């Protein structure tokens, strides 16, 4: 019993220490952000690495999620004679929810874990220490460009995911299930609001981008300098980001959904 209590207390104190460290790390990044803009090349290199190289995964993901969404929703809509609303239904689901959430989850799996491993390995192989000894601040040189690149990339990837999803829904809905193409697009035009729907999606994906990028660089930067430590950092990045994004999505949805 005492051992169990002690283990619980140890786990809680570990969690509190990590959470506190994460907060401190987040605040520590803030003063570096304005200066990072002065070296855009470092950011664009990382946008290529975390954003552009995730494109294929995001596009395929979006396309198939849109196709499945169309197939599933068609079965329900046909019962109510509302198959013309298929485009609007799929678009709203994608733009408001699935785009930001699934794109960020894919981003965490593909790029967040890669950033955590890369930064963790840099520490394990003394590259971070070497930078500090060359009077080069590793937060400025390594962490901040990766963080900003993630923050820029996630909303763009979410937008691409949603676009591909709508295309997928169009292919299945119009060409496979026989929904009228004009009705499909006009319903989207009529029902999807730029501010309430697209704006909400962009806002969410921006918040998710901040969270996912921050988690990747934090876990990598503080990874124990061992093979197991780096591997654990990559795993933790994906697991914690996924749970956090789903939780955050509920909170943001409850604030941004019209009528709540």
């Amino acid at each position: 019993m005492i051992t169990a209590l002690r283990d619980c207390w140890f786990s809680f104190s570990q969690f509190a220490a990590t959470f506190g460290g994460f907060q401190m790390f987040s605040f520590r990044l803030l003063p570096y952000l304005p200066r990072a803009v002065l070296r855009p090349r470092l950011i664009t290199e990382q946008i290529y690495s975390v954003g552009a190289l995730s494109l294929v995964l995001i596009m395929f993901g979006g396309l198939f999620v849109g196709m499945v969404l169309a197939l599933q929703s068609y079965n329900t809509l046909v019962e109510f004679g509302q198959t013309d609303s298929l485009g609007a239904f799929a678009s709203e689901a994608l733009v408001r929810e699935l785009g930001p959430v699934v794109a960020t989850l894919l981003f965490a799996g593909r790029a967040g874990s890669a950033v955590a491993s890369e930064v963790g390995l840099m520490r394990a192989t003394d590259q971070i220490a070497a930078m500090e000894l060359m009077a080069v601040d590793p937060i400025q040189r390594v962490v901040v460009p990766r963080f900003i690149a993630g923050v820029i990339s996630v909303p763009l990837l979410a937008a691409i995911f949603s676009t591909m999803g709508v295309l997928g829904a169009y292919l299945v809905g119009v060409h496979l299930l026989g929904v009228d193409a004009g009705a499909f697009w006009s319903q989207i035009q009529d029902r999807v609001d730029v501010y309430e729907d697209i704006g909400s999606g962009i806002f969410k994906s921006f918040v998710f981008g901040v969270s996912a990028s921050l988690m990747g660089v934090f876990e990598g930067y503080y990874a124990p300098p061992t093979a197991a430590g780096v591997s654990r950092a990559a795993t933790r990045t994906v697991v914690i980001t996924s749970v956090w994004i789903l939780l955050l999505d509920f909170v943001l949805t409850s604030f941004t959904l019209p009528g709540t």
Partner: protein
Amino acid sequence: MKLAGNSGTNLVEVQDVRYSRSDRMLFNGLSLDIPRGKVTAVMGPSGTGKTTLLHLITGQLLPDEGVVLFDGRVVCPCSRRRLYETRRQIGVLFQNGALLTNLNVFENVAFPLREHTRLPEQLIRQIVLMKLHSVGLRAAWLKMPSQLSGGMARRVALARALVMDPKLIVYDEPFAGLDPISTGVIVRLIRQTNDALGITSIVVTHDVAETEMLADLIYLISGGKVVASGTPGELQNDNSPIVNQFMRGLADGPVPFHYPGPGYSAQLRAMSRA
């Protein structure tokens, strides 16, 4: 903060430093001076804190008590800006080279120049090629760190450490894991760069033979203090047990073969009870 010291003669002064880690006292009143323009070796048995001493000199660690002076100024504690100013005057050669793995040899050497200066590209090219030429790796400028042998990686790291023309170069175990040819090359490079550029070098090592060829002054540390110091010849003729054991590589002596702990039979009894 500037402190009175013999900064005219000594580039680095470690004054009565105490430092402990995880309840273990590593340095208990350690004092030593690194004279300008000389190659000074810091030697001692494994685990005596040689690398920790380097970390104190470069401001990566803060002593519990005492001060470390670099060029007459306290290294740490100080502002980050001041610390980075000090570090710009210090080149560090890591045991594994610590090259940036996503940059090629040329870009690794150019890295400090690109970060700290606004020199035109043509000048950067000239400086980097000159430094690479001095370590014999000019032709390898396009290679990636993964394509280099251990000795080559250390020579590239040396070129990178030299590129900002530092006052002090610190070598952490520069001969570890190298074949005899690479070791000879590194010994020659350390001596030549020290003499040709008029810099000061600190070599942390436990390779006695190489150190005797290379060093002007040797500090032997053990038990948290300097137990002997002098030229290689003086240490060879020193008959104190610790110096004798270390310089001749004897298993028996003041440094025990066995890690301190309970007796063999006591441990067996304790383990059988558990």
